[in-house]
């Protein structure tokens, strides 16, 4: 959407923002970004979010860590078979602790990687569409619309009496 409009409305009230999002989605205007000072589930619901794929990252990372931990402890024991404390060379119960710790470690690391990929962090592009009050207590609704739907989007956003409405034309596809 290179020649469209970007409109950013900021609201003081949660229900205003939720209503605006619902109306926009009803009008088939779906390129919405919401800004919140804290994770607000009603906004996520209004945007129609499903499960986050981060959970797959957590699971796969954890399983890989556990498998890696078991493989590593077993392999190194076989590599240099030395009996200590009269225990078998493959002392699986003792290795379970390493397996567990590696599961947690790799599960956590992979969750973070999954988070960064899915949420597109770190965000190095300069912030064009933003209002510092969003970390304070305001809710923002940003929508990208083509020329034809601009009036309609404006009407929906204005219906909930935003504190502020910024509009900019998108030349280079920023936003």
């Amino acid at each position, binding site marked *: 959407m290179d020649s469209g409009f970007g409109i950013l409305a900021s609201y003081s009230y*949660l229900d205003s923002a939720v209503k605006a999002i619902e109306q926009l989605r009803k009008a088939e205007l779906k390129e919405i970004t919401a*800004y*919140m000072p804290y994770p607000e589930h009603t906004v996520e619901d209004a945007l129609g*979010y499903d499960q986050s794929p981060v959970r797959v990252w957590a699971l796969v990372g954890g399983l890989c860590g556990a498998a890696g931990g078991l493989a590593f402890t077993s392999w190194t024991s076989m590599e240099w078979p030395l009996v200590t404390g009269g225990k078998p060379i493959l002392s699986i119960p003792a290795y379970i602790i*390493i397996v567990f710790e590696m599961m947690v470690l790799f599960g956590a690391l992979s969750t973070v990687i999954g*988070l960064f990929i899915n949420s*597109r962090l770190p965000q190095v592009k300069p912030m064009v569409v933003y209002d510092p009050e969003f*970390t304070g*207590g305001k809710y923002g609704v940003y929508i990208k619309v083509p020329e034809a739907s601009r009036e309609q989007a404006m009407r929906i956003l204005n219906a909930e009496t935003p504190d502020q409405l910024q509009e900019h034309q998108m030349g280079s596809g920023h936003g």
Partner: protein
Amino acid sequence: MRNDTVNGSRGSLTHPDIKTMAEVNVDVLRPLSRPGKGWWMLLGLCVLGIGLMLWSWGIQMVQGIGVTGLTSPVGWGVYITTFVFWVGIAHSGTLISAVLFLFRAPWRQSIYRVAEAMTVFAVMTAGLFPLIHVGRVWHAYWLIPYPNSRFLWPNFRSPLVWDVFAVTTYFTVSAIFFYLGTIPDLAAARDAAKGFRKKLYSVICLGWRGTDREWHHLSKAYIFLAALATPLVLSVHSVVSWDFAVGIVPGWHATIFAPYFVAGAIFSGVALVITLSVLVRKAFGLEAYLTSKHYDAMAKLCLVTSMIVLYAYLSEFFMAWYSGEEVERAAFWARLFGGYWWATWVMLVCNGFIPIMLWFKRVRHSIAALFTISIFVNIGMWFERYVIIVTSLHHEYEPFAWGMYRPSVVEMGIMVGSFGWFGFWFLLFTRLLPPVAIAELKEILPKPMKPVVSNPLVTAGHPGDMSNG
């Protein structure tokens, strides 16, 4: 502008004095301004402590491990005691941030940032002690399993190796947890800051904007991290306890050690959270955020863990007697009435008896009383580890192998200095990162809703049914 709404004027149940969301940012970010004289003095004191530690450690590096009091039969002394002490301290942070998060405890939001910071710094402090204790620290990388020239690998049957894995995993996961929770608040700090600080926060908040996409994945990632960190908290001090319990030393070789250590760790950790948060609250005027409800909840946590710990102490004595084992009986008799009787009694009084006062609501609601009790608990928990380690080793099986251990000046210097190292990081934290979780606190505040204007007969003062907070 409709800021003076009826909805905006109500606080939540735990934080009745907080009126609006924007106010949270102002209050919490205020401490990040220019520090006062007192802060610089404390920082100077901590730097002196670090100097003392480095000086003492330097002496040990040059002259060898013989400058300590460690010798046969007591090979583990103040270093390992202080290591276990700091690892234990580190337990409340992740307990409060992960376990209480999963249990949806309504009082964790405003306290957990301090607790998590404390956790990370405590593990950083604890991590120094094995390095100090092993003596030739320049060979410390031998602890890491890597394909060395002779393909020698660590002995994975050894609890000491489990400990390396447990503590490093714990440090990594706690640091990740701490950082992820801070990102949105760093963005809030960025939006309020100017000049160099603005640049700094812009970088370390990773360009956070608080979009729906960011929040959606962050809040899910946070749940999974909490789910991973919860068993981790329990595992770490269990593994530390097995450093002892797997050995056949009388006084160590007990099956209750893992739960006993975990309870003790939470006990000491919560006590230090009380100590530190009382100071932070006082210094930065965060009375509306850390209310008596929070201290009451933490005091109850202390009380419960104190009872578990006391029960463990007593059951150890009971089992020593009931087992009929002569050596075991003698070891525990020596614990109470032998050369280290004072350490044992400090432990029993500080950890078992003084916290009994927490049964009284008046004590739990007095910040001064809680602060005093928490100091006693901190002292008592250091002595608990000293008792477990030193008194058990000094009185093993053979009477000719009994002997006393006396910590040397070098050891005490390093131990005292470690508090400076910990305090140094904590002081930097208080000036660089928001001390209360801004975003998470807003989750439990009442949400700002459009004022109800439909029926003029309904007075505008009671819109309570609108809130979902």
